[in-house]
């Protein structure tokens, strides 16, 4: 008795490829068995393994309709732990895509400052792929990417390619070298702010990463003359349904799954139960 309209019914996907990003983060290229999949950069799926559970994971591949898509995630909970034990050819279950995604229409013809932290968030890569597919529509792209150590930099194998794209600038930083080879900046992602070339007028800021990082990104950028309205954050909450029913991801009057995960800084500041507003 299978019905297509049940929003809780997942679709089967096969793990086509596993890419080791960092010691605790992998990228999984998944291939859906049945239907094609259409999504926006910044959306997420509910990834599940029967007998273990479900988790919300943002999509990191290019947002083009395809049976194939990719997810990058850290080994951090029950579901991700179990999936790290799987190998290529194994089956997982997905449903989605869910969420609003990055407001790409807001950056048309404008410069984009993209501030990314950590290795748990792959949605910025999906955004970059989107921009690169249609490069002329968007202005300069400046990416600030910070991680704990050099080994934690995800998609490191693509960074040179990004740098070679016209009008793209990538500034990388690590908190500590941890004995590894690193000749770029050292410090928190906000310590790159003195080197920003993006001007507050006619630009938009997208940021994703740990909430505490996004809090200081917002505060520092406002000091530099950016307005609350031009900064967008991708929030993260643990979710059970992804469709605005289970209630877990609520922040006051908003669902992160349905109204987000991308919110304007000014909007998040008015909501309770997050680090940005501190209420």
């Amino acid at each position, binding site marked *: 008795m299978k019905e297509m309209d049940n929003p809780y*019914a997942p679709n089967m996907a096969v793990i086509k490829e596993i890419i080791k990003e960092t010691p605790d983060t992998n990228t999984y290229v998944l291939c859906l068995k049945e239907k094609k999949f259409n999504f926006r950069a910044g959306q997420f799926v509910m990834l599940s393994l029967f*007998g273990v559970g479900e988790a919300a994971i943002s999509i990191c591949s290019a947002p083009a309709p395809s049976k194939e898509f990719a997810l990058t995630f850290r080994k951090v909970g029950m579901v991700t732990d179990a999936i790290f034990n799987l190998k290529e050819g194994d089956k997982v279950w997905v449903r989605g895509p869910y969420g609003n995604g990055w407001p790409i229409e807001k950056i048309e013809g404008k410069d984009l400052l993209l501030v990314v932290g950590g290795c748990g968030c792959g949605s910025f890569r999906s955004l970059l792929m989107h921009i690169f597919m249609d490069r002329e529509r968007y202005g300069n792209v400046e990416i600030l990417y910070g991680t704990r150590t050099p080994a934690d930099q995800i998609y490191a194998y693509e960074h040179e390619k990004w740098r070679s794209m016209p009008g793209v600038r990538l500034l990388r930083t690590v908190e500590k070298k941890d004995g590894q080879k690193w000749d770029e900046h050292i410090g928190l992602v906000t310590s790159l702010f003195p080197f920003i070339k993006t001007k507050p007028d006619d630009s938009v800021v997208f940021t994703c990463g740990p909430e505490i990082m996004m809090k200081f990104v917002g505060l520092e950028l406002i000091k530099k003359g950016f307005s609350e309205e031009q900064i967008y954050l991708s929030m993260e909450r643990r979710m*059970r349904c992804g469709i605005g029913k289970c209630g877990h991801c609520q922040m006051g009057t908003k669902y992160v799954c349905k109204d987000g995960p991308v919110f304007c800084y000014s909007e998040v500041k*008015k909501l*309770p*139960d997050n680090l940005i507003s501190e209420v």
Partner: protein
Amino acid sequence: MQFLRKIDTFNKNSRKFITYFSFGNRNHKNIFKPLHISNLLVMDKDNNLMQEKFVIDKEDVNELLRSFMKKYVVFAPVEKKHGVSFQKIDDEKNLCLSYTSTTTPPKKVLYPYKEKLFSFDLSKSEFFESKDNKKTIIFGIHPCDVNAILQLDEFFSNSMEDVYYTARRENLIIFAINCNHAGENCFCSSLGTGPFLEKGYDLLLTDIGEKYLLEVGSDKGKDLIQGNEFREATDDEIEKKREVEEKALREFKKFVDFDSLKNILEEKYTDEIWEEVAEEGTDNSFPCLSCASCSLVCPTCYCYEVFDYIDISLEKGSRFRELDSCQLLEYAEVAGGNFRQGRKERLRHWMMCKFGFAAAGESSKCVGCGRCIEACPAGIDITEVARRLGERNG
């Protein structure tokens, strides 16, 4: 035949319902679909509202119930040692229609505390969905609880339809009874959700003294009583209903005005009352115990947790959902932290939700049944918190 939706708004100044008709729902957010027959009223050829009113003897209720039990699963209020609760009833003698409030709300009929979403077979990588579609009657449900169901209807059938809920809902007939008496903790009269019901029923009873007034609210309701020869109500008897309602309205001791809090929503997140109620205790209540009783007994609380269970063969299992509560510590947990670590934040979240200012909006709003006040071991009273928040606004 034409389907229209009857919409009622409660005017607080005149303490009366204003009724109008519209296609679609209040907010015009959703495309209207004739799914929940209870929300619809049937019009005849000349576009007159076919609202039939009969008068029945009190003993006839038992007879009706007996006939329903032959064809339907019937849930009705049953008196137990520690209070009245909605139970599957198979003997009309157990019916207790004179109750004030049940301990747990009737939402469990539509939305069980725990239910299977589907079962799966790992060896075959297949899964099987489960849904139960038994024709059900909920009998003797009060106006506040019917209004709670109407809110849940909107919530579960909006953009992403919850098929488990809607399948049960389509098979549910609501046979409500108006409240002639307000309980100690009732405050539905302030919220327009009682003590008398204006919408959402298939059949509605009102105790008008010697007899019951029986009103038909939908085709489903009409079909259900077909074959019974009831006497049509006289104007006097209909007038009697109004008198009973006015008398009931005078019995209320608790009042709230949640709407007035809306304008001051943002300031109230930082109000010191949350610290006081949750952590210190007030003159009338102990600190919050985070026991989640309030959300368990709330007829509009819908939050759930999802679990997978696997059986001893390690091959077969099921995915379940179970009622959860924002009052529990684990609820807002995320990888590496918790966004509502303190009881203060959790209590604030729940109360704001009941004031209608959470993500589900009006769909999870309080209907004034008073169960949370009754159930709270610390004696926390939502009407008191609302009143104090309002007063602080000046």
